[in-house]
């Protein structure tokens, strides 16, 4: 949690903060939970745990600050602590390794998929969702935070506990990887040069 002065809300204020500031983000939060766990039941549990935790620690939340970022950070931490361990996917992808691989300049030259807008417009099914889900969870996360939820780099750095430069580079890699996946689908759709 952020080092903010502890609040002392009355019961009525707690209920109000919860319904006015936390509940409006529940769909975004559910989507984040679902995209992290890739499982509807796990997403449900993760969302519920997160909201109950947010309520329990409500005195650490300062009104007028960014409730959405605060909630996303709790959800991300709960996911890492409680779900990533037991997750079925062999999630022990070494992050550093992945990151340094994708940070090498060679990869940029390789990954310049000639994907066309026309091919994208024909992806009316689950292609984009499948492509996103197929990315390693850390790459998936930055795309969700930035492109779906509209967080600024600085907010993302706080949510993820990483430097802003890492946000920037991870996002760039993530988008290249997403395009790579999308151009595979485009080829399957018959866009040979896509």
């Amino acid at each position: 949690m952020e080092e903010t002065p502890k609040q002392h809300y009355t019961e009525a204020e707690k209920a109000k903060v919860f319904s006015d500031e936390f509940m409006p983000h529940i769909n975004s939060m559910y989507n984040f939970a679902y995209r992290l766990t890739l499982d509807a039941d796990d997403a449900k549990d993760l969302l519920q745990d997160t909201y109950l935790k947010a309520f329990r620690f409500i005195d650490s939340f300062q009104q007028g600050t960014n409730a959405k970022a605060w909630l996303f950070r709790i959800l991300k931490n709960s996911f890492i602590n409680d779900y990533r361990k037991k997750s079925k996917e062999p999630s022990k992808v070494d992050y550093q390794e992945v990151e340094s691989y994708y940070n090498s300049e060679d990869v940029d030259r390789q990954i310049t998929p000639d994907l066309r807008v026309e091919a994208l417009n024909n992806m009316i099914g689950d292609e984009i969702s499948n492509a996103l889900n197929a990315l390693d969870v850390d790459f998936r996360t930055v795309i969700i935070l930035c492109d779906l939820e509209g967080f600024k780099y600085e907010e993302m750095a706080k949510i993820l506990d990483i430097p802003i430069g890492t946000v920037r580079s991870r996002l760039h890699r993530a988008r290249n990887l997403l395009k790579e996946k999308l151009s595979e689908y485009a080829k399957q759709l018959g866009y040979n040069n896509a």
Partner: protein
Amino acid sequence: MNIPDSSKMKQDCPEQNECLKLLQSILDGEATAEQKKNFMEKHLEECMPCYKNYHLEVAIRQLLKTKCSKEAPQELVDEIKTKVIQNLSR
């Protein structure tokens, strides 16, 4: 941005990767007004690869927004509310 005349545009961009990074920070609202102006009003009108990249980036973002958002099931929302109310009355 005006619709550029493709015959007058560069077909190669020596800085394509750097341009893509800049383009992404512009679309993410993280670039300065000056960077944005130079790139959107000048570079994009004369550089075909970057012009294409711009449209591709925009299209991917739109596709993500329309296809990758799931809403929380209403019963889950109700369950969470109920649990919190129970917590309050304890």
